[in-house]
């Protein structure tokens, strides 16, 4: 038998070029958007554009009281003043203009708040996962305390105590949502910390910063980005509900949530005034969800499960 082996071994060296090692895994999937995902991107892009140029293309200022009447129907015009594509609200203001101005408030504030929530949540979460022990214990218990309070109640409490201003709104939303970001970041961090490549970096003698920024964060980035989209939606709804309760953005500044509340009584007169800002909230949040769906489909279905 050894003769056979010897003979074929020399032969096999010549064969080497012909029989290369075969790839044993399919190539990695690239992010591919479905048509719903593309629709989501288009809608989000539209609103981002409105955040930037909204006030310039709006026919009126958000605080201008220019209509002939409150709750004017869409596609009517006021003498000498102009055309109201979406009608007017309870204070005879142009709804289209207020929706466009409001994009800056609602989308802008939500985005900043989510960003801040991520900064705090991911930093603390990854720190807890990497340091373990007491650091993890203290951070997690503080976080549990925040998580145990109902979000809207906590929000109301802070805003009532500190007064309603834009920086306080952003800060409140950021703190409240940082606690759930912390949970996810910590869970991902812990999962990555037990991987051999992290242990190998530790065995090499790398600093904790290298491990956080080079080994852990790049691998947590994709799932965290997906979660960012979802969290942004929650913050939009949170700010809108605060505004709806009258504690969010203060008049006369326009924001979608307060617009729904202020015009709610128009429903009695058959006015569509509260529908337009509600549609704006819905379109923005659903569009983000459509994008998130595509990203999580790429990363495998388990990602979506983990985030719930």
């Amino acid at each position: 038998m050894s003769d056979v082996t010897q003979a074929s071994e020399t032969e096999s060296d010549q064969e080497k070029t012909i029989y290369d090692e075969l790839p044993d895994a399919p190539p990695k999937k690239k992010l591919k958007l479905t048509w719903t995902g593309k629709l989501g991107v288009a809608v989000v892009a539209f609103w981002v554009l409105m955040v930037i140029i909204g006030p310039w293309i709006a026919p009126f200022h958000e605080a201008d009281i220019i209509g002939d009447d409150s709750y004017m129907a869409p596609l009517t015009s006021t003498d000498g003043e102009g055309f109201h594509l979406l009608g007017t609200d309870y204070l005879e203001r142009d709804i289209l203009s207020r929706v466009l101005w409001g994009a800056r408030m609602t989308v802008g504030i939500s985005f900043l708040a989510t960003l801040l929530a991520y900064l705090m949540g991911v930093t603390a979460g990854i720190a807890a996962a990497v340091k373990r022990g007491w650091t993890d214990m203290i951070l997690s218990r503080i976080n549990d305390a925040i998580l145990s309070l109902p979000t809207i109640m906590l929000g109301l409490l802070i805003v009532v105590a500190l007064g309603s201003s834009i920086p306080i709104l952003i800060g409140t939303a950021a703190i409240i949502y940082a606690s759930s970001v912390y949970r996810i970041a910590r869970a991902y961090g812990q999962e990555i910390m037990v991987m051999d490549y992290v242990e190998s970096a530790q065995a090499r003698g790398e600093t904790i910063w290298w491990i956080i920024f080079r080994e852990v964060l790049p691998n947590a980035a994709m799932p965290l980005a997906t979660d960012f989209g979802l969290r942004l939606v929650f913050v939009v709804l949170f700010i809108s509900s605060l505004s709806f309760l009258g504690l969010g953005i203060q008049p006369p500044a326009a924001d979608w949530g307060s617009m729904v509340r202020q015009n709610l009584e128009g429903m009695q007169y058959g006015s569509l005034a509260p529908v337009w800002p509600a549609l704006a909230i819905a379109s923005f949040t659903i569009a983000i969800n459509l994008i998130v769906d595509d990203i999580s489909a790429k990363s495998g279905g388990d990602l979506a499960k983990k985030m719930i």
Partner: protein
Amino acid sequence: MSELFEIDNLQIAFRKEDGTPVQIVKGVSFKVKAGQVVALIGESGSGKSTISMATMAYCRPGLHFPGGEVRLHGKDVLAMDPQDQRSLRGNKVAYLAQSAAATFNPAITIGEQVTEAAVLHGTMTQKEADRRAIALYTALELPDPDRLGRRYPHQVSGGQLQRLMAAMALVSGPDLLVLDEPTTALDVTTQIEVLKAFKKVIQEEGSAAIYVTHDLAVVAQVADHIVVLYSGEIQEQGPTDQIINNPKHPYTKRLMAAVKPTPKAGMGEDLDSKYDSKVPNVEVKNMTAGYGGIVNGKPAITVLRDINVKIKNSHVVGVIGESGCGKSTLARVIAGLLPAAKGEVILDGKQLQADLKHRSKEELQKLQFVYQMADTALNPRQLIGDILGRPIEFYQGFKGKERREKVAELLRLVELPVEFESRYPSELSGGQKQRVNMARALAANPEVMLCDEVTSALDSIVSSNVIKLLKKLRDKTGVSFVFISHDLSTVGSFADEIVVLYAGRVVEQGPVDEVLAPPYHPYTRLLISSVPELRIGWLEDTMQKREMAVGIARGVEITDVGCPFYNRCPQAIEGTCNLETAPTQEPHPDHFISCHRSMEEITAAENAPQQVLHGFEKAAPEGDKAAKAH
């Protein structure tokens, strides 16, 4: 219509991102007669698993069948509607996946899972299925068949679970059984136990089978007919006898060359005299280690006990033993990943701190650990160039252009193209990733590389290439290796010295040619006999050997007193071996065997004719390892 099962010009393909179709299986045809075992053999990526799933008209998401037929009893299953396909699966065609541990649901009893398919398809009532399952447990030689069904998967051993999977597949009496690499992940000793049971049950049941594997030596034991695949195409097919004894195709010959030789003295290459050294590079002294809190120098769970190992300069020390014997723990203790509870690790005459956090950068650099699974050992978000470049920069301070040159040099050293530096690990094959994994350890310019089962997850051809590479690396760089494996023939062909670990103790240790020649420690003997040979009938022959009778039926048990191998040893002396720690004997200089039997007794037993020796009586069901599951 005479054929039970037939695959005719089967094609399986997927579409790439840009829409171009890629064929994975390119027109494969073969037949399976009733009662026949057909083996599909090829390395990973050859499409053998994909074909085996097509037998149930199933393919992984993204794949589709552009052409061909899969006929069971003359009826094309690919053309059936999904309802009919469903009634086929687990009923007429049963599939046995590679990993039993991943197949069984840990929260449901074994009996419920084994009988599920038959009851679900309505072919049997629960009672009938239970009776049938018990008959199968008995046929598969599983312990305590009447009560086995009430246990949970974690309460039985890995080999038993693998056999239970066969029971699960056979319970509804399928016409065709598909076995996908059912023994690849197992220890050699467990592999024999499982192979023997599979072969017996297939013969008794008379069902046809498709056996998928990359290991020709295993195929030679079970198959009637062999189909050799490469890259989705059949290279050669024929009766087992012809393929094994008279292979025609060059690729088959290549597969034959990759079959592991029987471990024997002189199988390895001689150490280059320039590296002949008596100076120990790393020394482990009286080391005890384990997991859990340490009380009085004793961990909660002791994995290693009083270990003494010397690794000489530029030598390769093979560490061998079954899973659970503490091989990986030994390497982790040396690397400082797991601080020892007691004892010393000495590097170049200087005692090292137990925990790597307290070791200096130079000490860390000298000892490099190579992980078993390249998939988890390489950061998927870093380019190969960065993975290799970082240790170069970190330890040697090369930056920019110099660093790139060093990376290119390393890639050439491990025989990979230099362009790989701008690829991600996921774009490489399993063997290529393992090369990068080793190159990363080399990048630190170490004195000792600790390789933990680096070839175990690779198929035979790739693994033999990796071993060839390791030999070259040792000759070029003079690095010493600690090479951990459960595969004695791989260790034997590469190592200069062998340490045989059993249940956390060194039972035999010495130069490779001494360890692989008589006198053997009874455990070493068992390991040597368990390496499959590329010879039809080897399985039957080896089962005749006396060490197999007790050795195969039982698993590793960690004991506090006596010789740990007592319960599996054909030469065990009751009252001595189970009570007293075995003395260490030195039959040759530097060759140590821990055994109560004298060297003469061991050698005499070696040459004695087949007989039931003392110890065999202990194989009665009561003392069985399953009993401890209660």
